[in-house]
């Protein structure tokens, strides 16, 4: 077995993952590209397990299993964040996320004081103004 074949496959997959993370605008597609990168690392670990003699046997495969579990946890939390973003902004484009303003569009004090002003102003704090506008 020539170990260079799976190693080069893993390197190319990692490059594709980096490209996808930087290129895509949709947050779900960004998560898919992150999965590509994690799988490239897994392939490196499994190939190293069969080709490099280690002190503990099968440490590479154990690490690959751990990375798979970590990827499952990551995708769960990541999708929860993406769905919350969609609920707030009605869009999952990662370059339209404002990083400099507060996460809720209406601040707490304003919402409490102006609760009687209009129902539209306060429900904007829950749904986001973009949904309504």
């Amino acid at each position: 077995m020539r170990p260079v074949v799976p190693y080069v496959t893993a390197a190319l997959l990692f490059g594709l993952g980096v490209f996808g993370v930087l290129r895509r605008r949709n947050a779900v597609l960004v998560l898919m590209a992150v999965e590509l990168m994690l799988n490239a690392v897994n392939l490196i670990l499994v190939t190293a397990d069969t080709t490099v003699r280690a002190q503990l046997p099968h440490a590479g495969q154990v690490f690959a299993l751990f990375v798979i579990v970590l990827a499952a946890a990551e995708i769960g939390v990541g999708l929860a964040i993406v769905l919350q973003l969609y609920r707030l902004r009605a869009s999952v484009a990662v370059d339209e996320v404002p990083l400099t303003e507060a996460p809720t569009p209406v601040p707490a004090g304003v919402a409490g004081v102006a609760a009687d002003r209009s129902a539209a102003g306060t429900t904007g704090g829950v749904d986001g103004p973009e949904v309504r506008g």
Partner: protein
Amino acid sequence: MTGADLLLLALGAVAVGAGVLVVSTKHLVRAGLYLVVCLGALAGDYLVLTAELVAWVQVLIYVGAVVVLLLFAVMLTRAPIGASDDLDRPGWPAALIGGGSGLGLAVLLVDAFRWSRVELPTAGTADRLGEQVFRSWVLPFEVLSVLLLAALVGAIVLSRPDIGRPGPVRSATPAAGDEGGRA
């Protein structure tokens, strides 16, 4: 070139080709389905590399759970069904960085391993792997179970709007009731 080499080459080509389609297709749902092809080819790679347990865990968790979750997210965010043009940024820097890192890593690994030859170990490593997991790596294994629990609780807290925001939610509760009354 032995049979294992040819299999690894073919599966690697399938994986890389499907990966290219994942990061370049204009259909959101098709990106998820190409991801299935890519992950399945990688599971075949693991089988050839005598890592059967990792291969089947890959099929179970990645192809079975992660891709289904991603497709759920595609549906829940009301993604367009057909081709859409606004999925990509104009991407010369992305191509530069991604291609540079991928090809750079490939050159490094080719330089490290050249065209050397390694004998594959005998197949059937699942029992030895389980022995290792429950002997040398049992503490990280247990920590991972705590991490999965934390991720579960975190996902629930993130997706329920009435947990974890004490100030604004309570003041907005009558407004929500008002909205319900108006509707």
